[in-house]
């Protein structure tokens, strides 16, 4: 049953000894990997995600991460972390693996047998680098392979690993939870989430054209880069305002026109266009709360709602279809903040006011509040979990 496993980087059976988080050999390797990607960036012009990953890996950024954990506590990795990653988020496997390595672990990574070109390419680079003698220690701590989901090897690693990290969906998590795991293995799960964007209408109205375009660029990056299907891609846009006037309507239109302009770079193929139109029509048929629908060619569809519907997490746009609501953002957030609400991107409201509101009103949802344009930026704290803390053990001591 273990045939049909393709090893893409590292070794077949990695060594498990835990290291301290942010240990030098790991940081040196990541720095070299970052440099290698930068050097070869011309090869990756069609794979935007690889250079972005390389940039994320830069030494200064990793050092910033390291400094966050200089708190005098004693931490050490857990052993082997097994990563199971969504197949259609390019390069996600590499982020997951790096976080595992940073926490002081060895990493076994299963990527889908349908894995993307980006992933194959990046594995090639990683594996080449691991072949150098100076990285033999790190090489022995990595195993990246692809196989079908029902391959025996998945079961074996589930049983053996000291920690399990699963990206991608309630269904995947449920099926893994049904399998045998070591009793003391930690589980870091990333279930289905959805995200929103809050814009203060007045403040958007005062931005000069150029600034607005920059902001729209960031919004398009958050939403369109992953066909709007990432957990962090905004589904709802909340306009913080008292009442709808001619002026607020003007501001709204100016914003969406700016977004449309930035979205022209988005590659809309026949499949995406028909699926998106079908999604729009379906919501138009079944949603009670629609005030009006606007179509900016096929690049951008907006659905303005009179109120936040029940079960807002089930409203999923795709490829640039947004639900809008106008009113006090706090009222909206209170109804949107189900457990599944992950990221809020914002402009023009006070961040403290929002985060205080979450805490003071005991809301279940909202795990991240970041400026527009940063929705997809990976952090060591994700979905409300500090991944370094979860993937390492802390030695407490008393004298």
């Amino acid at each position, binding site marked *: 049953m273990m045939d049909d496993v393709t090893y893409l980087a590292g070794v077949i059976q990695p060594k498990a000894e835990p290291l301290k988080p942010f240990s030098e050999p790991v940081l040196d390797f990541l720095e070299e990997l970052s440099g290698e990607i930068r050097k070869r960036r011309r090869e990756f012009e069609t794979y935007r995600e690889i250079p972005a990953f390389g940039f994320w890996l830069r030494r200064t950024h990793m050092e910033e991460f390291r400094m966050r954990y200089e708190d005098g506590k004693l931490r050490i990795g857990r052993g082997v972390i097994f990563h199971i990653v969504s197949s259609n988020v390019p390069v996600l496997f590499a982020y997951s693996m790096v976080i595992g390595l940073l926490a002081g672990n060895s990493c076994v990574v299963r990527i889908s047998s349908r894995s993307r070109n980006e992933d194959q390419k990046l594995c090639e680079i990683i594996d080449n680098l691991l072949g150098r003698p100076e990285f033999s220690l790190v090489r022995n701590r990595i195993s990246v392979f692809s196989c079908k989901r029902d391959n025996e090897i998945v079961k074996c690693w589930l049983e053996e690993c000291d920690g399990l990290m699963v990206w991608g969906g309630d269904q995947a998590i449920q099926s893994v939870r049904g399998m045998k795991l070591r009793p003391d293995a930690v589980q870091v799960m990333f279930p289905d989430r959805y995200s929103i964007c809050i814009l203060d209408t007045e403040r958007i109205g005062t931005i000069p054209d150029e600034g607005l375009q920059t902001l729209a660029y960031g919004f398009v990056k958050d939403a369109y880069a992953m066909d709007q299907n990432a957990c962090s891609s905004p589904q709802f846009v909340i306009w913080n305002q008292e009442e709808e006037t001619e002026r607020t309507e003007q501001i709204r239109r100016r914003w969406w026109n700016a977004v449309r302009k930035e979205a022209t770079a988005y590659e809309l193929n026949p499949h995406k266009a028909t699926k998106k139109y079908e999604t729009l029509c379906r919501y138009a048929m*079944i949603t009670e709360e629609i005030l009006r629908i606007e179509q900016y060619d096929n690049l951008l569809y907006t659905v303005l709602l009179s109120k936040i519907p029940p079960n807002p997490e089930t409203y999923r746009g795709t490829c640039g279809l947004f639900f809008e609501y106008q009113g006090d953002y706090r009222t909206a957030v209170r109804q949107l903040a189900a457990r599944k609400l992950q990221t809020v991107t914002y402009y023009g409201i006070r961040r403290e006011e929002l985060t205080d509101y979450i805490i003071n009103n005991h809301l279940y949802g909202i795990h991240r509040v970041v400026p527009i344009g940063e929705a997809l930026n990976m952090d060591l704290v994700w979905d409300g979990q500090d991944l370094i803390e979860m993937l390492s053990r802390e030695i407490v001591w008393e004298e």
Partner: protein
Amino acid sequence: MMDYEGILSRKPFSAAKDEKKLMYGEWLTELTDYHRKHCPSYGQLLKHLMIREHGQMREEEIPMLPVGLFKEMDLISIPGDKVFKTMTSSGTKGQTVSRIYLDRDTANYQQRALANIGGDFWGEERLPLLVLDSPDVLKNRNLFSARGAGILGFSIFSSRICYGLDQDMNLDMERIKQFLDRYTGKRILIFGFTYIIWKYFYQALAKSGQKLDIPEGILIHGGGFKKLEDQSVSPHEFKERIREVSGIKEIHNYYGMAEQTGSIYMECPQGHLHASLYSDIITRRVKDFGVCSHGEKGIIQVLSPLALSYPGHSILTEDEGIILGEDDCPCGRLGKYFKVLGRISQAEIRGCSDTYDG
């Protein structure tokens, strides 16, 4: 109300461009208003897409319903007790299928449209029909699959029917030969789905080394080349190979779908698919669903005035095609003629929640 008797009394390839455009604008505007009133979810769609209620629309302005919605919702413009039959699309196993609700009138109009189109190609005379499928396809009479509907639809052309495959999809040579012997020298119709014909007729014959000799046979096949293309069999090769093993000279592919049964697009001897008076085709650009020029590849929209019991008179399909011309096909038929390039490629959409796929 729509004058279906008038529409169906006309010859299927008799309307030239300007007249057809005008008629389709009128007919489909009327149907759009009709379904708005009789199918609540369709009415809500039009309201939210801000399609104005009164006033004449041109053919290309008629709102399009994405074909996928027939899988997700019950789209119906008649009371439940008027449903005469329910058609389902031919989904592969595990896929959800479209459900199309027909009343007696709609089923009747669609049937007659098919008869008229067929008549234009092989005459009004009823011919013996050899069905290259298993009779079992028709067993569940309440739920018509596209395969069953196709067989039943074409059986109206026939004086006598013979099924060429047994219940296990094996070629029944004995029965076929008996049938052919009876009609030696006479024209016969042969009908089946493209892939079924290839797999259970051609390949079975080729494998056994047997050949048939049906020079007077007229083969009509539909259902798409998708599966054959996966095996690198082109439409041209399909024809050649069928000819080799069966001697059939006249072969017509057709394009059609369960969502608009009856008003099929038949392939003429030039190899062009033809829109008849009972249906029309528009190709759409990805960027804004603007109308493509002739010769330009686009997403296929199909229109038909015959969809009365359900709002299927203007459908955005998941196929791509190219309109080659209008009214000037060398075969002499009026109307648009085109070719289908096949299903839109299911390009990968990104997203977080598919860890376990594949």
